């Protein structure tokens, strides 16, 4: 314990502060939820009197936030979702297919420049977006990748690679060499060892890595902004921001806001990662890594 429990006055202060803190943290969230289910045009602080799924209906039925005139964003929403999905899956694929072998190799290889290589990889991961983003655009333009979802997915995946490789290496480090030596003694060739022993044991780590990458691809903003310039390849974050700035872009005066629509979009945005997380959790619980034969 860091502080002495006791001294009722301190405890009181502490809990009051904690309460305010918690209010501070989560206060924006109920706002999001209550409004998503509200009637168009209204915005509620408390639970609304009329709950409706109208907003979600409107989103998917391709209606726009403004009743008449206005950009037809509505019809794009399911496309945005598809696009985001593609991005996230491609990025995840890049990390799993390229990153896990790399993590494994870095875990098992021993050579003089290894630490240097690991540091170099880390440095690459630390490069600031501000410096990279503009040349990245030019490079991708010349490569013809701009407005290409798969290409952008690969770029996002390559951005996630440095940290994921570190993460995966750590996971593989945790699996002792002796497991592989046992497999070798029992007659496995290298591929068999990998698929029968290493992969199953590292399942947890791989899934964690896949999930994190999926998340970062799903929620990616800056790279998609740079590389996906045409509205038809917009992803969900880009779409939501475009709707939001259209609604609120008027500076001071913005009457006629369709907060409900926007909130509904927000919910739509958050749900898929949550679903994926729940899916992964069931799988994760199924695989207990446990103590790998270390009995002390």
């Amino acid at each position: 314990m860091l502080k002495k429990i006791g001294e009722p006055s301190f405890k009181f202060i502490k809990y009051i502060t904690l309460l305010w803190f918690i209010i501070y943290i989560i206060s924006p969230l109920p706002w999001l939820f209550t409004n998503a289910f509200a009637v168009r045009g209204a915005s509620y602080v408390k639970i609304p009197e009329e709950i409706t799924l109208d907003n979600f209906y409107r989103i998917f039925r391709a209606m726009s936030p403004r009743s008449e005139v206005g950009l037809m964003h509505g019809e794009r929403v399911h496309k945005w979702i598809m696009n985001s999905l593609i991005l996230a899956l491609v990025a995840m694929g890049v990390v799993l297919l390229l990153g896990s072998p790399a993590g494994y190799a870095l875990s098992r290889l021993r050579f003089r420049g290894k630490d240097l290589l690991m540091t170099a990889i880390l440095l690459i991961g630390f490069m600031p977006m501000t410096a990279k983003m503009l040349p990245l655009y030019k490079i991708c333009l010349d490569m013809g990748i701009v407005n290409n979802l798969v290409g952008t997915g690969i770029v996002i995946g390559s951005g996630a690679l440095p940290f994921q490789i570190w993460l995966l290496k750590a996971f593989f480090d945790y699996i002792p060499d002796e497991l592989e030596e046992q497999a070798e003694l029992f007659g496995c060739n290298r591929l068999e060892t990998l698929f029968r022993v290493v992969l199953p044991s590292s399942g947890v780590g791989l899934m964690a890595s896949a999930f994190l990458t999926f998340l970062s691809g799903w929620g990616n903003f800056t790279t998609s902004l740079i590389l996906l310039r045409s509205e038809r390849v917009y992803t969900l974050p880009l779409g939501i921001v475009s709707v939001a700035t259209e609604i609120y872009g008027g500076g001071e005066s913005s009457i006629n806001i369709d907060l409900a629509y926007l909130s509904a979009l927000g919910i739509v945005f958050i749900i898929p990662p949550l679903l994926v997380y729940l899916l992964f959790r069931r799988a994760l619980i199924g695989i207990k890594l446990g103590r790998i034969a270390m009995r002390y």
Partner: protein
Amino acid sequence: MAIRFENVTKRFGNVVAVDNVNLEINEGEFMVLLGPSGCGKTTTLRLIAGLERVTEGKIFLGDELLDDGGIRYVPPKNRNVSMVFQSYALFPHLNVFENIAFPARVNRRPRREIKKRVHELAGMLGIEKLLRRKPDELSGGEAQRVALARALMLKPRVLLLDEPLANLDAKLRVSTRADLKRLHKEEFKCTTVYVTHDQVEALSMADRIALMREGRILQVGTGDELCEKPKNTFVASFLGSPPMNMIDCTFDELNRKLDLGPFAIEVPKSWIEPLKGHRELIFGIRPGSITVPQEEGGIGFEVYVVEPLVEETILTLKREDVMIKTIVPPDHRFRMGETVQVGFNLDKAHIFDRNTGEAIL
């Protein structure tokens, strides 16, 4: 079929782990590689398994050359040797049944045969009830048995064990020792090479012991041979608990006496020839070969420390700057500070050259 090491050396960079080792292990024998940490015993084991390659020298399994440090190298999976690691290395994603079955599955044995053999081994080792469990649900002793069963699945020619008892608590260690020995004699019947640093384990289980130090083999022989005819001071003091008493002494050729400092011992006739020419020596005598109290003609020592154990009592005796330990039956009572008469059984004594450590007698 025997295992033979011919001038085997293994280097890791500048470090010599195994230094010009020559060793012969007989078919069906239980050979123990004994020695302190870092003496090269585990490396030797791994060389037999093929997990390491020799730097120089040759390793033979029967007539087959396994490794010659050059072109010839038989990889582990073709050697039909099995190894149990200190950590057991059970596959965490498989249950016990699948763990044991693993070697056979890799070699594509028919399902029925696998099932039969797994049950056979489980019965032999008393783990039938655990077959559906996962490794992280097993206790230390259970995990070890599973590892053993897995190692025996394919009826290997050679079984290699790397400190398998190290992770068990003391009591379990004692009972498992006996079990292992019995199992080896009656069931396994394969050549077994066992690595440990615990001399009690070695003495109780081995047919022969190879005592290693700093990459070299100091002496190979049965437990009796190593105890009663140690070749040097290291071997002599490694085996035995409490260890052999080593007292510096000088040989007085003129008076036929061994001068141990505070007292002297008369040298029997048979000793004079071998000791001729030597001067600085070490007198070695095991605690069990010291008689207390000596009826007549004994040398006076002060009882310095009394350690009453269950099966025996250990006395530390002191005379000026010479301290020795002896064991006496538990019912003999001694008090600290008491003076006792001590006798030395010279038939069981050893003499070592102080400079080389080599045994003379």
